């Protein structure tokens, strides 16, 4: 066993911390509270910070250098995401493009596609959203019904996608659509489509938080060009699954870093009120810290296996269930412990300003649903890890 970071990794992290000190003007939570901002200008804050990251070589961490990436190790990528969370830096508005679509192009795209799309993805001149989920196909993603009908050399897309993160601000969308309605997995193709065209209608979708970061998008005879198919016809499912697998590693230290910051803020709030002296409060906060440290231990273990190129074990499903369900317990308990003050919206006078607890509380309900719901993850563990029988 060796859980220590290598000297190279420590150097990377220290340089990154110094860079953040220099270049992050203020925590994102402060931006959120600035009355000058609206949803549009906050996206611009995020876009601008992404450009800074890109100029400094901290974007496209896992991408090869020839495409503007850093060719970084999984450990470096994990450290970057953890440090950004600790610093409360604005999140990239193009994370799905860079995390999923970019790797799909790098591994399965054409040279023309890479040249056309990758630089603008990193520079954030073009924001990408993901067109995977549908109203009738969430956890059962292969159940998508959006269809692509041949039209000369090209295709016409009909159907509806939903949960398109930052859809209302996006320029392009990568879409899974059926080129064969019968073949469940082999009938799905991976398309790249501009949003600004006739036949594409993007509608904001109001979430329980009151925001509309997600959208829904309707395709009615929208054009998808043949030259914008990634891979071959019918390879969409395989490509999507491959790039989803690339996620492994980069996010291993992120949740515990992010929640660690939130716990620190909770302890500050409870210290300010004096409630931290109460035995029942101490027991609850202590248990939250214990659980976050276990989350961190799981993350370190996953990262160690990724760093050694070991085949994926049960850990990705375990990690997903653990962080998403823990975030619900954390925010539930934190708000309870902060008493009436904990009920205040962050914009209210007298509220704690270091964490937007009400947003975190609501957002934590999404974590157990997206990227494979807790139920799907438990099915995966039961069937693939414990090899329990199917009926």
């Amino acid at each position, binding site marked *: *066993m060796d859980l220590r*970071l290598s000297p190279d990794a420590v150097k990377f992290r220290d340089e990154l911390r110094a860079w953040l000190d220099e270049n992050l003007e203020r925590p994102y939570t402060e931006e959120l509270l600035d009355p000058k901002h609206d949803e549009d200008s906050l996206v611009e804050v995020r876009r601008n910070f992404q450009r800074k990251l890109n100029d400094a070589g901290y974007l496209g961490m896992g991408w090869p250098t020839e495409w503007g990436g850093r060719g970084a190790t999984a450990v470096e990528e994990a450290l970057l995401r953890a*440090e950004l969370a600790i610093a409360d830096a604005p999140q990239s508005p193009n994370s799905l493009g860079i995390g999923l679509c970019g790797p799909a192009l790098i591994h399965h795209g054409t040279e023309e596609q890479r040249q056309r799309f990758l630089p603008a993805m990193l520079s954030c001149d073009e924001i990408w959203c993901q067109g995977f989920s549908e109203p009738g196909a969430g956890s059962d993603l292969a159940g998508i019904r959006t269809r692509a009908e041949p039209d000369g050399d090209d295709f016409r897309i009909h159907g509806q996608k939903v949960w398109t993160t930052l859809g209302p601000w996006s320029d392009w969308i990568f879409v899974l659509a059926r080129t064969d309605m019968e073949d469940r997995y082999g009938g799905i193709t991976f398309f790249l489509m501009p949003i600004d065209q006739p036949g594409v209608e993007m509608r904001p979708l109001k979430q329980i938080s009151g925001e509309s970061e997600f959208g829904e998008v309707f395709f009615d005879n929208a054009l998808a060009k043949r030259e914008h198919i990634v891979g071959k016809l019918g390879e969409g499912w395989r490509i999507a699954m491959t790039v989803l697998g690339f996620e492994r590693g980069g996010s291993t230290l992120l949740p515990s870093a992010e929640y*660690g910051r939130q716990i620190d803020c909770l302890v500050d709030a409870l210290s300010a009120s004096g409630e931290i002296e109460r035995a029942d409060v101490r027991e609850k906060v202590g248990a939250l810290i*214990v659980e976050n440290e276990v989350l961190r*231990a799981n993350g370190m273990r996953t990262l160690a296996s990724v760093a050694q190129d070991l085949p994926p074990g049960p850990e990705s499903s375990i990690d997903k269930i653990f962080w998403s369900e823990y975030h619900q317990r954390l925010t539930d308990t934190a708000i309870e412990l902060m008493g009436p003050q904990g009920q205040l919206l962050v914009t209210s006078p007298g509220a704690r300003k270091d964490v937007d607890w009400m947003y975190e509380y609501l957002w934590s309900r999404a974590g157990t649903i997206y990227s494979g719901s807790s139920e799907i993850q438990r099915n995966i563990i039961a069937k693939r890890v*414990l090899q329990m029988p199917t009926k």
Partner: protein
Amino acid sequence: MHFELNEDQALLKSSTRELLESESPIAESRTVMEDNPDGFAKDLHAQLGELGYLGILQTEDAGGMGAIAFAAVLAEMGRVAFPGPYMDVAVAVRVLEDCGGDTAAKWQQAAASGEKIVVLARGENMTNADDTNVAATFADGRVTGRKVFVPFGAQADALLVDTVQGIALVERPDAGWNATEQTTLDHSQRFAAIDFDDAGELLCDASKGTQVLADAARRATLGASAVMLGCMESALESGVAYTKEREAFGAPIGSFQGLQHRAADMLIKTESTRSAVFRAAWAEENGEPDAGYVVSVAKAWAGPSSRFVCGQSIQLLGGVGYTWEYDQHMWLKRAKTFESFYGSTRASTENVLASSTHLNS
């Protein structure tokens, strides 16, 4: 970064499993629990000494193998709910080494070789196992006082008694200990209250003893967490195996999603405990500054998690899970008992909060 055991540790783990499978499978733990008045097999304990297991926590020069090896061995023992004072003696051997001096060295050798049983006698508080205040005294060559929940105390050849003056060694008097058995849920884990008015020898003074005992307590906390991990492994494996065999409503019950999700939760708890225990073992072995913190994390997590997993294993089996005949109860009882000792869940949780500095590195 890597999480796997190194070659020596992996070999130790696999040879420990083989040894226990042949010499002390869970059926043997049951026999000892039911029929052996001492609560452990003395010949097997001696064999553990010959094989070097009892000296595992000694410094490397003295033949120790480190905290990671210690945790790996104890997880194996947890798998078979291994009865006996193995962990307590291993911890005491290191205390003897840390105390130093001729008497301590003699007993260190005797305990490490398996000839003699030596354990710590520390707690005096019946309602708080974490209370380190002591009233026992050493004066004029005699130890007086009362210690409670001394693990395998009645069976010990010598006890290392925490007194106001320091750590004193008391040999078993000719007439035997003035011991009262304290029978707990876990029949294979014997405890005794012991009243001392006996000749003894001070091995180290209180100022040094405090540190020696704090180190010992931290190692025992780690060890107990590892034992609970082993209990969880077996409870999970045997519970899931049963759901693949047992049929109801025309199908193996393991095909029902209600049981699958329960089993998935058991796996999550078990594997998370493994992460926490070995992170702690690594920190302990390398003398990391946060070792006490992460060891407490492991124990605070392993306690409730092992209760959950071992309890749910009974639930997976249904009615037969509640019978004496099936092994499920043995893991649950060990886990439930260990939760209250070697750093209770409550004390470990408080320790985590008190020493919490977020280690985002």
